[in-house]
């Protein structure tokens, strides 16, 4: 192989560096902008501290919060227990136990008997979502993620499914 079929689109980094090389003046312009911003803030009154928890924080786009599992068109867990998320997980926080699908699932062979995510171990990198071949797992924008015990932070399959039911489609996940 090796015929360059996988060459990455070149944007971002290369374009920026070329631009700076062409016009060093831009650096001055940008620096001036930044300084202007700083001084504006300096003279403007009022605090920028959010009065959390009385005031709620809305996470920015791209924020990754707790996970949820999706359902397929027949309401069954979409996950096929392929372990790709567990394999991709750098924190090794996903525990899956695969099982033979019930006989009435004629189109499915394998499903997760157990699917647990230890959110205390999770680093919210989103690799599980990237790795999933059937788009069954995603990270929601839920904030804050709190619990009163360590045990609560280990989400099992059914809890993840309920989370998905509650806000799965409404939440904009990582763009």
């Amino acid at each position, binding site marked *: 192989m090796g015929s360059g079929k996988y060459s990455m689109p070149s944007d971002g980094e290369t374009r920026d560096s070329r631009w700076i090389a062409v016009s060093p003046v831009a650096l001055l312009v940008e620096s001036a902008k930044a300084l202007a911003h700083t001084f504006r803030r300096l003279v403007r009154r009022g605090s920028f501290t959010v009065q959390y928890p009385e005031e709620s924080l809305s996470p920015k786009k791209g924020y990754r919060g707790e996970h949820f599992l999706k359902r397929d068109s027949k309401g069954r867990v979409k996950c096929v227990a*392929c*372990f*790709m998320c567990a394999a991709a997980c750098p924190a090794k926080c996903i525990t899956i*136990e695969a099982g*033979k699908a019930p006989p009435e699932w004629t189109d499915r062979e*394998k499903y997760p008997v157990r699917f647990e995510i230890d959110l205390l171990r999770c680093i919210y990198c989103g690799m599980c979502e990237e790795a999933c071949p059937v788009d069954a797992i995603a990270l929601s924008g839920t904030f804050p993620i709190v619990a009163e015990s360590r045990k609560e932070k280990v989400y099992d399959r059914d809890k993840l499914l309920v989370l998905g039911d509650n806000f799965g489609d409404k939440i904009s996940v990582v763009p």
Partner: protein
Amino acid sequence: MSGQAAESKGSDGQEGSARHGGAGQGPVLCADGRPGVRIRVNGKDYVVHKHRNLLDALDEIGVTIPRFCYHPGLSPAGNCRMCYVTLADPKTGRPIMAQNLATMREEPKLFTACTTPLSDGLIVETDNEAVRRGRELVMEFLLINHPLDCPVCDKAGECVLQNYAFQHGRDRSRFVEKKVEKPSKVLGPNLLLWTDRCIKCTRCIRFLEEIAGTPELAMINRGDHSEIDAAPGHPVSGPMTCNVVDICPVGALLDPDFLYAARVWMLQRTSSVCPGCSKGCNIGIHHLPQQFLDSGKGAIKRIVPRTNQRVNGYWMCDIGRRVHKHVSDEGRLKGAIVDGKPASVEEACEAAGRRLAEAARDRPGSVVGIASAWMTVEEMWLFERLICEAIGGKAIGILAAPKVPDIDMPGFRISGDRNPNRAGARLVLGDAAAEVDSDVVIAAARDGAAVSAFVSCGIPGFAPPADLAKTLSNMGLLVVLDTVESELSRRAHIVLPGSAFFEKDGVYINERGIVQRIARAVPPPAGAREDVEILQLIMKAAVGAESSAAAGDLGASGAGIAGGGRRGVGCHEGDKQGGAVGGGGGAEGGDANAHGAEAQKDSRGEKMILSAREIFARLAAERAELAGMTYDSIGESGSPIVQSSKGGA
């Protein structure tokens, strides 16, 4: 190397063409002096052994070419067309051409290396444009009807098709039509078939025909619709069935026992030896690493054969694949029992050692020891030391799983002696390696008035003959070392929880006198211990009971192991013969004392306990048959016992 095992097609058709390699004065010899063949591969000249075909020869020189249907243990079929190479005329050096019927142009002709006989002067190219294109086309055809369900396929991660798709395939499919879908089938109690994953390599068919001798599978239908099937009403049920799962290059044939059990990349592999029979097949134990270990489910996920031409070739039987099951079941001994009450292993060993030694002191000759053909040689050696020297009793024989008829197949034999280490028992225990029955025990009881017995078992599903069980349970003291609850352990006064073959290190000697290592894949469950540790704890207790009649007359090695640390240096003053052995033990003890609390306070507690490796070193120093052997020299492929005296088998 691989070609040596293939007996059937040795020399036919190869000798005839052996001369047109040019200058042919004198026979061509390989580096090891065996007759060879000159070939030129990708412009470099090699001399290879006289393999049965080109593919084996290329494997020998390290030029690996892809193949699906070829397996060194089976006859070549040449039906996957993946092992394409191009050849050149040995006389002119010009590539052999053929007309491409699509373009009507002359192109280098593609030959399948697995069906090309090896001849002198062969000129081969394995990586030119024509070959690469040929392979890419083969991959494209194979993937047309393959479902590409890698996420749910158990083979993913060790799938030949998956690997070759990366190495030789196109990056995307041009196939837009509908794939042929075929129903999955249950081919037998140990075999499932995902029909649409099959790439029709026919390895399974050839295996059952040539090795197992039960041609149960066949290819039915034609073209796109051809599929593997068994005759209706005749499930694939031979004892070698699961080998077809191993040799299946895709995930078409699967073992229901491993189905969805784990993804293969999660598994750790430990090289070991199957204890299922005296053949001693080399195995790989595939198990989950520590961090994935779940309570409840067994840690051992599967057992697969490891290639060893001297012992098992490429295969193993299904009995061996399931041999770990008996310990994974409930009924596993997970703690010691003393007089019906649970106790710690240390307490139980202490009690066993003390009470056995006292019994031997009170009535000399009243303690008998019965070993088992499932013990490793290290355990047997310790056992003999313990019974004969530390306690002062008599080792009267071994327990062994009952003999069954051998199973002979065209390419494999399963031994009827379902014990891994009878030869080891013969070597270590000598006269005491005969199987015991109640007569032996009663005879021992008559002349020595045996009232106490120390029995080691570890044999799966072993039930002693009724009269033997009765004789043993009438003993005043019965100490049993076993892995699972059994007839014997239920009758015992003291039960000691030992470990199974995958939980300990050790050495087995197979029926043909090949010394092979088993290795610990997973630790024994909490509460159980390695057998060598238990034996040494008992020995320590027995020696500690200073009133023991045998204590004064202890063998040097026994004292070195058991009492070395506690009693200090004085213990091995009166060495008899094995000075070096006892001295080794003493050095060990002194070392441990020096390190004391800071370093050696590990799981082994007082650190007077020797590992199986250290014990084997002592054993090898004693026995001429094992002279010079260490765990490292035995390695993964085993080494035959040194033939000095009698052969044994």
